[in-house]
């Protein structure tokens, strides 16, 4: 990702004896343009063609606002839960030796590999009032399936590996001498972790949070089964896009998609800034 140092005169690329630059870059750009850029610009063009008044009416519709709040809110909570437990999981995997550690480590990637629809119906069965976990929680008055809490559960499942896999490699790199120095200087274990180790891990944790959050906002397959999908209550924004499409209301589908894209990019931008800041602060 290093860009070439500035040389005398502007040059698109540095000279190289390796052939194939034109062919591979040309093909890559053409493929990228056809598959990704043209379709995405189509979305932006369609929402721009809507006109401000129509766009505003769709954006401020109660159902749209609620769906966006539910998507972003549940994704935020799930990502926070994953930050806490994901960091603990990563710590245990990096620092402790126990039988079956490799299997547990491999299992963490399950949500990457398991199709979302499969996860969706499995979690729903598990947390339904008659399910293994649902029947335990029902006497406590806790309803998970077909409520926003169910959405959070599905998004915790989906987001977990993002946090663990981002934090884990950074933990592996921690120099144990730093901890020894802290201990020698009189810090107890809690102080060492809270004031020496965690700040160093902060950028990775923030990145893991951002990835889990971004994935959670857009998630569809694992959520729709467990959510109950009640308008205004447990209807996520991606589902509302699908519903509008099925009503042939392309304008509303496009507008909601454009809002989601814009909000996600703003979030990623903010998180990028926070990351840069924390790297400078704790780097």
């Amino acid at each position: 990702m290093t860009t070439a140092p500035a040389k005398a005169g502007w040059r698109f690329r540095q000279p190289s004896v390796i052939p194939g630059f034109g062919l591979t870059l040309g093909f890559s750009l053409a493929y990228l343009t056809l598959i990704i850029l043209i379709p995405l610009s189509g979305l932006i063009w369609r929402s721009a063609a809507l006109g401000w008044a129509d766009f505003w009416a769709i954006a401020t519709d109660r159902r749209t606002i609620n769906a966006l709040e539910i998507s972003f809110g549940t994704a935020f909570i799930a990502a926070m839960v994953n930050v806490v437990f994901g960091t603990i999981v990563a710590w245990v995997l990096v620092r402790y030796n126990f039988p079956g550690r490799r299997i547990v480590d491999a299992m963490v990637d399950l949500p990457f590999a398991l199709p979302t629809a499969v996860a969706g119906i499995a979690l729903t069965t598990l947390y339904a009032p008659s399910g293994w976990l649902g029947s335990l929680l029902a006497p406590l008055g806790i309803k998970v399936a077909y409520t926003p809490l169910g959405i959070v559960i599905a998004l915790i499942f989906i987001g977990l590996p993002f946090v663990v896999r981002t934090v884990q490699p950074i933990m592996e790199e921690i120099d144990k001498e730093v901890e020894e120095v802290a201990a020698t200087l009189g810090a107890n274990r809690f102080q060492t972790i809270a004031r020496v180790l965690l700040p160093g891990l902060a950028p990775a944790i923030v990145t893991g949070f951002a990835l889990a959050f971004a994935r959670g906002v857009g998630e569809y397959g694992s959520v729709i089964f467990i959510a109950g999908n009640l308008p205004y209550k447990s209807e996520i924004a991606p589902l509302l896009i699908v519903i509008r499409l099925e009503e042939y209301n392309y304008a509303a589908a496009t507008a909601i998609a454009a809002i989601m894209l814009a909000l996600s990019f703003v979030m990623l931008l903010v998180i990028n800034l926070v990351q840069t800041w924390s790297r400078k602060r704790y780097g």
Partner: protein
Amino acid sequence: MADPEIKSYTPHHESQSAAVTESRPAKAVLMIVTFAFLGIFLLLPLIVVFNEAFAKGLGAYTEALTNPDTRSAIHLTLLVAAISVPLNIVFGVSAAWAIAKFEFKGKAFLTTLIDLPFSVSPVISGLVYVLLFGAQGLFGAWLKAHGIVILFAVPGIVLATIFVTFPFVARELIPLMQEQGNGDEEAALSLGANGWQAFWYVTLPNVKWGLLYGVLLCNARAMGEFGAVSVVSGHIRGLTNTMPLHVEILYNEYNAAAAFAVASLLAGLALVTLVLKTLLEMRYGAELAATRGH
């Protein structure tokens, strides 16, 4: 799930003082939290899939899988993966060659664009093709006049699948090829090899395990994709239903046993993917890209 016995961590050098590791009770708590969390969130759902699949016995299981609609869903899923994965391999190798072997302006921006599909909701990935090729879409009228069907047919499903699996191969190969540098290829070229030979006999053997790793993840997602495909497929039973979509239809018809039977095949695919991925990491860890993360 694993043996509850807790062994203390042994670092490379002798520093076992209490101050650089957690106390035994703290360790025990952290391990219990980890096992409980992973057990509830990862292991239980997986067990549920297989438990429900066989809940009505082996007969019902095989019957669900030999049903004509299920078989056509399996065929379609294999067909879609067989088209979209190779296309993304060609793109991934080509993009990695351009980005890793050369220095040019706008490279960082191009790398960001390649990752773009990961930050787009799958539903939006499907929607963009509906806006292009749908009846009210940009090219809708033209396609209809020429009798070309993309949406609610195999081409649309393939396009949506390519969109969501777009970055997998490229993002695995780019860091790997950047780490390896250009030395080997330059040597091959100076010994008289042409570009294709340098790629085929030098680069490809160097990156083959990384490539396989990327293909593995790409394939798992291609066969399991739900949201994007759901938007463009039209859900025509026996025609445009992929396996994940068929799972949804069966489940919504309250045919849970059949839904979980098909789901168990997809879960099996996920497990095989995880095993192969772990084996690759164990055996060829050094030959995979050091910088990874989804």
